[in-house]
């Protein structure tokens, strides 16, 4: 099997299922390991869906160098035992566990067969280490702050963390199943908005792109423009809120208060535009429900000017403030090797020196003309993730202003009444503020959905957090956790 025989498709495209090459599992595994040996490629998604009597495994590998996505598949029988690819390539380990959990396939030689979401709370046995000096600390699922549930089990030697095991799945509410069961488009749109409330714009944009592509519909320029603007506002709001939370976790009250209140004008602008502070309702397939007017443009420009002045003043302060820096610098390091090995995406990858940003490698919506260059840091520590946010905020301000200079007109809403094509496979990659989001839909011969796969960047990056805290004091865990701010609900689905 050579590279040219595999299917290369562009981001946001739709192909007939028959065009996806079907390999034997041995070949599928060998090709996967060979492809992922190149550092500019990573696994965007690997999943299974029921096909005939058995199952079909689908691999989607994003090639940052070529700007395309390599797709191939393999048939398997229920309960079949396959040789694990994760044993050689750690980036695949959670995907294999998910396939095992959802469909019962066995992966022989998998390094750690622990549950992804499906477990009995209180019954699951955590990884243990023997040693008189060691002790365990269990935290969660209910945490001290107003945050989502997850269980963290630390194995410590004194104050030092030797190992962290993260057990997720508490937020599992069955979104992928509901996507197939609920037949109306508006129901599915709302499900996509609820994958992660803080990323509702990016996830619903990925859904809209997949759906439009399945229907053979090309949205107008104003639709793509509005999605891009909404996504950049989402990035601004979340990065700002996170900077406040990072300051809060190192007990720097001025930073926590200032960044905390700076998030407000951004989310309030979102509400002025679409009636919801988190951008819910702003993205719909085929059209843009809320026109962007000249008044909104004037409002946004003045909001951003006031925001930028205060944001820069505050950011200038924290980056030179010794008592903040001493908590951030060299805390929670993810090395370049680790980030590459686990297939990290988004902030977790960019802060460790991996140049991986879908807006630049696989541009979509209005990004092709914006020429976004990824912000990359090399230290891989909490400070790098803080600086990355500050720099991405500055970058987003530039992107938003460039968009506003080239504002399209919002005419009448189109009433498109098409339905998905038969036997089709559609994929959309979107760079949310956390990183790469991937949505995939597959239709049956009658055009109905038979598979809907959602992957949030957190699915890759939770492992980065587990690695980052090793060797750190356990008291630094909150700041490490907040510096990634990974999603529980979008992982648990």
């Amino acid at each position, binding site marked *: 099997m050579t590279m040219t025989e595999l299917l290369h498709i562009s981001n946001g495209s739709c192909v007939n299922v028959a065009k996806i090459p079907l390999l034997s599992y041995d070949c599928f595994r060998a090709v996967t390991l060979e492809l992922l040996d190149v550092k500019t490629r990573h696994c965007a998604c690997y999943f299974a869906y029921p096909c005939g009597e058995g199952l079909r495994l689908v691999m989607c590998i994003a090639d940052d160098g070529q700007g395309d996505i390599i797709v191939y598949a393999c048939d398997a029988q229920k309960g079949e035992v396959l040789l694990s690819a994760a044993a050689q390539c750690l980036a695949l380990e959670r995907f294999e566990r998910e396939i095992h959990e959802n469909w019962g396939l066995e992966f022989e030689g998998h390094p750690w067969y622990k549950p992804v*979401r499906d*477990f009995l*709370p*209180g019954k699951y046995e955590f990884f243990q280490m023997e040693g008189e000096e060691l002790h365990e600390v269990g935290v969660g*699922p*209910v945490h*001290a*702050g*107003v*945050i*989502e*549930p997850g269980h963290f089990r630390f194995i410590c030697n004194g104050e030092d963390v030797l190992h962290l095991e993260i057990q997720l799945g*508490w*937020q*599992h*509410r*069955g*979104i992928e*199943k*509901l996507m197939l069961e*609920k037949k*109306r488009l*508006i*129901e599915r*749109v*709302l*499900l996509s908005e*609820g*994958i992660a*409330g*803080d990323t*509702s714009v990016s996830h619903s944009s990925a859904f809209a792109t997949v759906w439009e592509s399945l229907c053979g519909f090309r949205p107008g320029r104003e639709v793509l423009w509005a999605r891009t603007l909404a996504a950049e506002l989402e990035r601004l709001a979340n990065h700002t*809120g996170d900077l406040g939370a990072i300051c809060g976790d190192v007990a720097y009250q*001025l930073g926590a*208060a*200032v960044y*905390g*209140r700076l*998030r*407000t004008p951004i*989310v*309030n602008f979102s*509400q*002025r*535009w*679409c*009636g*919801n*502070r*988190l951008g*819910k*309702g702003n993205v719909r397939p085929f059209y843009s*429900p809320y026109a962007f007017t000249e008044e909104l443009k004037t409002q946004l420009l003045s909001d951003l000017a006031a925001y930028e002045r*205060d944001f820069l*003043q505050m950011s*200038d*302060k924290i980056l030179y403030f010794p008592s903040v820096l001493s908590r951030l610098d060299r805390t929670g390091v993810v090395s370049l090797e680790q980030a590459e090995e686990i297939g990290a995406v988004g902030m977790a990858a960019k802060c460790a020196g991996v140049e991986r940003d879908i807006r630049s490698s696989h541009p979509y919506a209005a990004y092709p003309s914006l020429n976004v260059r990824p912000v990359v840091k090399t230290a891989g520590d909490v400070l790098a993730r803080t600086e990355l946010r500050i720099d991405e905020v500055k970058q987003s301000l530039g992107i938003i202003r460039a968009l506003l200079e080239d504002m399209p007109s919002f005419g009448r809403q189109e009433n498109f009444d098409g339905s998905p094509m038969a036997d089709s496979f559609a994929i959309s990659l979107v760079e949310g503020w956390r990183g790469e989001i991937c949505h995939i839909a597959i239709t049956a011969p009658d055009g109905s959905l038979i598979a809907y796969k959602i992957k949030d960047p957190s699915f890759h990056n939770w492992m980065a957090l587990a690695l980052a805290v090793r060797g750190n004091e356990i008291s630094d865990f909150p700041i490490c956790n907040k510096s990634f701010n990974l*999603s529980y*609900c979008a992982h*648990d689905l």
Partner: protein
Amino acid sequence: MFKSIKIFLSQGKQFIPDVRKAKAPGVFRGRPVISTESVDQQEFASVCPSGAIATTPVSIDLGKCLFCGECERCFPQKVHFTDDTHMATNVRERLIVREGEDKPIEVDKNAVRPEIRRIFRNSLKLRQVSAGGDGSCEAELNATGNVQFDLGRFGVEFVASPRHADGVLITGPISSNMAGALELTYEACPEPRIVVLDGTDAISGGIYSGSPDLDRSFLDNHQVDLYIPGNPAHPLTVINGILDLTR
């Protein structure tokens, strides 16, 4: 030092002086008003993704409504979402808005347990439990604590331990995996304790209603003291709801 003072001074006054009267800026999809205009009721009800619309008479149940605005988009003459953020109540029935009605949704003072007003009037500490939602209500709850909304000025706070709490505030549709932890957290709160449901997902399950991965039996066994609708609930809805309940 001088830099810090400069930053401090340049913030000016950020707090909202009167949260009881404050309005959400711009457009906000809050309490809907349904006109008496005659429409095909079945067709009107069928546009709702979460089954919040009932017929004869036409009504919208804000405990199920996801505030997506789809009904207003399809039937602009029939329904309009106003910018009224005051939507929380202690009586489930009061979340149902009927056609022709345009009255505020209020807490029924007579139905509030007397100990709530006696004990929690000036100090209410809540333990928040996130149970299967999308994290958006948590984001807005955190916003209630920022310098603008400043919920703390009323003696209302979210605390780390249920042992320090006067009750639980639940977000999310209550996933099966969280059902046990929710019960344990509630049991760990000393009595008297209250139960608050924050957001449409918590009140009815929202878009996830009927999913086999939910376990909402907690609500069969415990009385709910406050329903706060929204997707997510706006900080002003949360703050005014809690104040209406306790004061």
